[in-house]
């Protein structure tokens, strides 16, 4: 069977995943603020209400608690809701329904009720969104047992992972790095913007396909050190590696929980050095868990401590966005330190 692909940016790929799934599975319902007629503030659901009908793709009141709470009830009925939270920064009012309800339902009812729901939400900074349109709260969800956390870094993965997330029988938080919705981002914010079309990840099959959750992708092989990262930072890391010529292995985790520990371990044991890169604030970010795991499991292979390259422990500032962002300078310095030790 020939697979028909099409150049897509991240938003188009997500839209395509949702469209395919709405077509295949009558149980799928999309709900969220402004996602209906308008198609979402980032256009991820554009055209879907018109095509699949108002009872399958609809606007909600501005209540993240209600959105996720209603979705839990829909899931209990037997549907597969895919709620959108307009910005990850606004997920907190719905957090109780997510962590105390969605994440616990299968466990507390011993499988009587399940919650196959995928919460989509744009996250991350780099768009001058200030502190309430830039947050990366992913690590909070990795601490909550019963939820999977998925973060794609390119259109191909976004579609395949989103389909797998929707088909998963457990709740998934699917964070979409909004900085790269329309093009990959090298982190060199003063250079011209690249479109997705020049990136291999923009060749996206029009039809259904899945990328298994819990599998990382090695986006660049290397010997000098291992970089563990995800989302926007994958592109920044690759760009810095190209720029510096340091022979780093770059691993795009794609799923934070459950983590692809095998790929991580094998790489770090090979290179003996490990760096973790994320945009979220440092303290108790997911980098902490990664550093802890790597030193637990690869201790005798490590030539240097695991380095964390992260956002600072401050809110995401508006005008000093690039000073906050873990960009090329921060990454380069950390790489140099790591290989010198």
């Amino acid at each position, binding site marked *: 069977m020939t697979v028909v692909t099409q150049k897509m940016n991240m938003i188009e790929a997500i839209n395509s995943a949702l469209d395919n799934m709405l077509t295949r599975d009558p149980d799928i319902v999309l709900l969220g603020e402004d996602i209906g007629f308008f198609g979402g503030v980032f256009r991820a659901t554009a055209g879907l209400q018109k095509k699949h009908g108002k009872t399958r793709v609809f606007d909600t009141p501005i209540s993240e608690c209600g959105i996720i*709470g209603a979705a839990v*009830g829909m899931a209990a009925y037997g549907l597969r809701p895919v709620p959108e939270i307009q910005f990850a920064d606004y997920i907190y009012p719905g957090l109780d329904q997510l962590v105390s*309800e969605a994440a616990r339902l299968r*466990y507390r009812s011993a499988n009587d*009720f399940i919650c196959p729901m995928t919460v989509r939400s744009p996250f991350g900074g780099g768009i001058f969104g200030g502190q309430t349109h830039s947050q990366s709260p992913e690590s909070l969800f990795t601490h909550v047992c019963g939820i999977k956390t998925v973060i794609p870094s390119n259109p191909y993965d976004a579609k395949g992972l989103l389909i797998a997330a929707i088909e998963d029988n457990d709740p998934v938080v699917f964070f979409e790095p909004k900085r790269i919705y329309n093009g990959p981002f090298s982190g060199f914010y003063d250079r011209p913007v690249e479109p997705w079309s020049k990136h291999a990840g923009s060749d996206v099959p029009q039809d259904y396909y899945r990328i298994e959750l819990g599998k990382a992708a090695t986006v660049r092989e290397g010997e000098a050190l291992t970089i563990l990262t995800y989302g926007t930072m994958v592109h920044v890391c690759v760009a810095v590696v190209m720029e510096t010529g340091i022979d780093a292995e770059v691993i795009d985790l794609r799923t934070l929980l459950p983590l692809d520990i095998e790929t991580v371990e094998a790489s770090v044991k090979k290179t003996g050095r490990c760096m973790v890169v994320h945009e979220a604030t440092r303290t108790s970010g997911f980098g902490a868990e990664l550093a802890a795991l790597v030193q637990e499991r690869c201790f005798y292979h490590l030539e240097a401590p695991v380095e964390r390259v992260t956002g600072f422990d401050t809110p995401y500032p508006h005008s000093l966005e690039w000073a906050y962002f873990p960009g090329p300078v921060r990454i380069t310095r950390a790489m140099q330190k790591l290989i010198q030790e």
Partner: protein
Amino acid sequence: MVKTKTNLPPLRLHIPEPKFRPGDEADFSDVVVPEIDEIARPDEGSAPAAIQNLAFGLIRVLDNNGNATGSWNPGLEPDQLRLMLSNMMLTRAFDDRMFRAQRQGKTSFYMKCTGEEATSVATAMALASDDMCFPSYRQQGILITRGYPLVKMMNQIYSNRADHLKGRQLPIMYSAPDHSFFSISGNLATQYPQAVGWAMASASRGDTRISACWCGEGSTAEGDFHSAMTFAAVYNTPVILQVVNNQWAISSFSGIAGGERTTFAARGLGYGIASLRVDGNDPLAVYAAMRWAADRARTNNGPTFIEYFTYRAEGHSTSDDPEAYRAAKEFEKWPLGDPVGRLKQHLIRIGEWSEEQHDAQAAELTDLVKKTQKEAEANGILGHGLHQPFESMFDDVFEHLPWHLKEQVEQVLEEQEAKFGPDWEPR
């Protein structure tokens, strides 16, 4: 801009305080009990704006002498009335026994619904058996009415090896999908938006099943309550949202939840939802209100909000001592009586019941509960060994065990071996 006048009175913060505290003699003579049919039963399809007064009245059917009268009288057959009575009596007998089991150290926790039995038994009888219920923790009467095996309830309470929830949940946090009874959460009011979502799903599928949820008057303050009401109103959802106003939320009287200023039923008016205020200790009124609401929902006339005005006769739970914060014997003074007593009185009045039958039935139900308790205890009680296998702790976190949980299963088994010796075997 206006200049603040300097001769203004100082502002005052009002902190609500119940009328009676320990040592006081409770006196409920100020509770207004309207005449039966002061507001006659409107059509189920009525516009919410046309029936706002129902939120400020009190729907009643049984008068003080046990007569069923007025337009809300559901006209149930004697058999149904007796069934209702026995379901309420069984609920009470069950509560008494399980409360005692907790006091005997057989489990960690229990919660009674004494005095509030009508709000779960009569409502469950007015719903279809496949309408989905999203209860709080005080609606054991639904399960009993729907014929859920008592022994399964007890196994759950004991967290024993037969507990189908694998000993994971606090006692009374039942889950019974086959009886259209949603898994109970410890977090207050979370079931409210879930019930709305379930009904939205049902409606979007052109199904005919509706949903109903319950919470206490104290829980109405949670944001989930508001989300649920908003979603129910916006999507004209076939859901029945109920508040059991039993006057107390642990130690806080209903004024702390906003009860001083208006009725809880009035909350529904703000959303344009049909809202009823019902004598929660009058089983026939409760039944009638739920039937009205269910018929309304089934015919695409949208959600109904119901307040049951009742009284929490006992402590909040086994962890609570109500004598520390409220007047003794308040329940005896409650002007709306006891739902069991009132239905019994009615049945006797219409010649379909007698004191003797009542006593005999009470004894029979107590026996049934005792017998069932023995059966359940054969499966173990909390902390006495007959629990679920250790590794069951990791099941159902996810559908499939991820690697890190697999490692933790290994670990817990090794630990148990280290603890109980090499001959130890996972049970």
